């Protein structure tokens, strides 16, 4: 009966016809499938979870670090070294961007070919270059200090294994100009001579860095880590050196050293009323842009590092002491014998003469050693020593220049019997050119000695200027004494040994110096010098010229005088110092 009614529900009952019933999807089937599916998904998820656990927790730190290393780059940002300017703000030393060419020797497949292509661009020997490119080192320097433009040309060659390193280079636009004052910066960027060394802490600044994540093209990935540590540029320094006066002085002394076949020569120019050093020239000199090929002896600053016996230029010190002590006046008379023998040593004058009747002024004008000794007798050794100390002999000038010498001034207790007379006319003690210049600056500045200085001030990166500290001067001798000595020095130029220093229209004071040169405990050759200042009635500029061991001639007047003249003439124009129009007073030299 039930077979009559068709089944209403899709049950699994066999068909009455006996044929196999088609497989019908049931609710139970769905449940099973859901369970399977859930299980599968859970399995899959647990595999994922396991992998994530492995990646994130177990290996997480290592992998993150690995990824960071692939992307993160830290670029050093070298601080710009502070520039050095002259007194007018012209650059003497500046820092520019440059490139060092480096190589990974492992990457260079054909060193010979690479060397052949690179050699002409780097200006290097091909064999040397090939040697540098051959080996197993992953980092070698091929060349240093190329301009960015030069590097771009090398980069365009596309030589595999050749890289560059960005750096900065110290350059000196005027080449050898004031090189001995400026010094140089070594390949590590450290000031290694002159002011570059003395002011290194101020000039060098603080390096910075930039750390960022980088894409394949080298661009920074946005919104990723980017830490910028700005470099702090070094402080700029403005010197008292006047570039143009320095140039004229440097040229003049270089030509003179060459001409006289001298070992070396220096010119020191000081502003009488301030102690500012306007020029400090040395010959032979060097090019700080190419210091590695320089002769080491030529790299020092001779006006402060070279000591010598001042000779006749030192007589001014004795005269000042005698006048200041009230023992003599410019017109004081003295009888000068042809020779003077004391302590077993006979003193002569530079030209033989009979008995002369000279004034103090005449003694200085003719640079008589004997006359000077006789006047020095009036104050005695202790007083002379006292004044030598007061004028700064054997003591630091206060400039604190690297390698600066203080000179040697023997104490009275160590004197030989002949020492006193030698000291009186400028021998048996040694000085630097700067010390002599300082002595004349004191006379020119009404007896007030000022600390010589090379630095006007400091310039910050934002352009603000901080003047360097200055110290008040020291009154060494009275203004009256200084004026008296100054008149006598004018007579040296008008009537005496310094005639070559005359400048038309100006009153010039000056003194020649020709000293025997102390070498290894004995004397050999000469130290020829000339020092003076102008305008003598209101002194502004002191110029000191020094030549060591000249072979063609040895008189300070002949050798040093023209250099003094050239430098002084130019300095008066440059600083726009007009002549007063007065004439030098005449003081009798004989009686």
């Amino acid at each position, binding site marked *: 009966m039930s077979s009559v009614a068709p089944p209403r529900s899709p049950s699994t009952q066999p068909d009455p016809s006996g044929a196999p019933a088609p497989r019908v999807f049931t609710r139970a089937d769905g449940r099973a499938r859901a369970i399977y599916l859930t299980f599968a998904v859970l399995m899959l998820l647990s595999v994922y979870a396991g992998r994530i656990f492995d990646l994130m927790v177990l290996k997480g730190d290592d992998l993150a670090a690995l990824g960071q290393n692939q992307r993160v780059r830290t670029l050093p940002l070298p601080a710009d070294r502070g520039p050095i300017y002259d007194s007018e703000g012209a650059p003497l030393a500046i820092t520019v961007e440059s490139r060092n060419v480096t190589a990974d020797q492992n990457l260079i497949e054909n060193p010979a070919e690479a060397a052949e292509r690179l050699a002409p661009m780097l200006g290097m020997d091909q064999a040397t270059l090939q040697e540098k490119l051959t080996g197993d080192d992953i980092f070698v320097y091929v060349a240093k200090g190329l301009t960015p*433009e030069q590097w771009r040309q090398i980069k365009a060659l596309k030589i595999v294994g050749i890289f560059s390193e960005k750096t900065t280079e110290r350059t000196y636009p005027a*080449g050898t*100009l004031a090189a001995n004052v400026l010094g140089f910066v070594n390949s590590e960027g450290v000031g290694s001579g002159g002011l570059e060394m003395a002011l290194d802490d101020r000039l060098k600044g603080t390096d910075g860095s930039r750390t960022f994540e980088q894409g394949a093209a080298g661009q920074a990935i946005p919104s990723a880590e980017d830490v910028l540590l700005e470099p702090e540029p070094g402080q700029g320094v403005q010197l008292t050196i006047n570039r143009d006066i320095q140039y004229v002085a440097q040229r*003049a002394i270089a030509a003179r050293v*060459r001409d006289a076949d001298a070992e070396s020569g220096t010119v020191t120019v000081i502003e009488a009323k301030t102690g500012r050093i306007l020029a400090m020239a040395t010959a032979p000199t060097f090019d700080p842009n190419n210091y590695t090929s320089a002769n080491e002896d030529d790299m020092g600053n001779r006006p402060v590092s070279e000591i010598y016996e001042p000779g006749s230029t030192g007589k001014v010190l004795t005269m000042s002491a005698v006048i200041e002590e009230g023992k003599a006046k410019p017109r004081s008379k003295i009888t000068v014998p042809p020779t003077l023998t004391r302590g077993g040593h006979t003193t002569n004058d530079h030209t033989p003469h009979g008995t002369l009747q000279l004034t103090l002024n005449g003694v200085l004008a003719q640079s008589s050693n004997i006359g000077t000794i006789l006047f020095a007798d009036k104050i005695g050794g202790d007083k002379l020593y006292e004044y030598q100390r007061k004028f700064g002999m054997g003591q630091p000038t206060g400039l604190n220049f690297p390698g600066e010498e203080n000179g040697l001034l023997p104490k009275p207790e160590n004197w030989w019997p002949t020492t006193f007379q030698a000291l009186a006319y400028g021998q048996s003690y040694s000085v630097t050119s700067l010390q002599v210049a300082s002595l004349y600056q004191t006379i020119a500045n009404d007896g007030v000695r000022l600390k010589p200085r090379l630095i006007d001030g400091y310039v910050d990166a934002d352009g603000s200027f901080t003047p360097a500290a200055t110290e008040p001067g020291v009154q060494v001798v009275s203004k009256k004494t200084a004026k008296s000595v100054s008149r006598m020095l004018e007579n040296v130029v008008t009537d005496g040994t310094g005639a070559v220093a005359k400048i038309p*229209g*100006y009153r010039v004071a000056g003194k020649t110096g020709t000293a025997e040169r102390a070498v290894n405990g004995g004397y050999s050759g000469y130290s020829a010098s000339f020092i003076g200042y102008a305008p003598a009635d209101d002194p502004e500029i002191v110029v000191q010229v020094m030549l060591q061991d000249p072979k063609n001639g040895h008189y300070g007047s002949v050798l040093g005088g023209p250099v003094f003249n*050239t430098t002084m003439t130019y300095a008066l124009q440059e600083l726009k110092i007009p002549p007063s129009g007065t004439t030098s007073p005449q003081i009798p030299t004989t009686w």
Partner: protein
Amino acid sequence: MSSTRTAGREQRSPGARTARTSRTRRATSRRTAATKPAGAEAPDEPVRDVTPDSGSRRAQRRAARSRVAGPERSRSPRHRMLVACTAVLAAGFFAVLLLNTVISQGAFRQHELEIELILLAEEEEALARAVQSAETPVEVERAARKLGMVPAAAPVFLRLSDGEVLGEPVPAPKPTEKVSFFGAPGVLPTPTPTPSAEVSGTAIDPALDPATGLDEVAPVPVEDGGAAPAAVDPAGEAAEPQASQAPEPSQQGVNP
């Protein structure tokens, strides 16, 4: 026979006609529906209850079913919500994509501009260096001498307030003469040119003569690099430019 056939056909006619009618009506109604937008009412528009036959009722039912759209109405707010959410999500994704693209493009542009900036800075630096080297005293002197200028032998000033001349004017030496930087011609001998001279220290030829083609005068190298020969020995006047220009060994010996 034909009439019989016709009659026979006629006999079946009520049903057949009805069927035809209903067919016609359906077609008509379909047509009506189609032409409705035109606003034209079909002239033979039948009245619905005129011929109540089963076929038309089924059709009516079908039509009614399709016209009700009950479930649609009940599903609508949820559907719209879903569409809106999807749209917002898609828009969001698209915006983020766009933003990232723009940022990335910005980064690339920044990269390009930074490179351009570096190149321009390099160019500026190169130009500044050129100016700096042209400004150096040695170059200024060289240019001045090319113009036929000479160093003043003595400084002289003109005071503007009263027109007074301060200093002693000294006639300047003619530039065609051998001019010495030391104020007097012929003080120093001819410097010996050395091959070690450097570019940075190119010296000045003091014998620069505006009358004899300035551009051809080669700088005389000197051993110190920075300083120039200050004066020329008159005796070496003729040989000097030759010696300075010619590197041939045969002339080296002649050179004083």
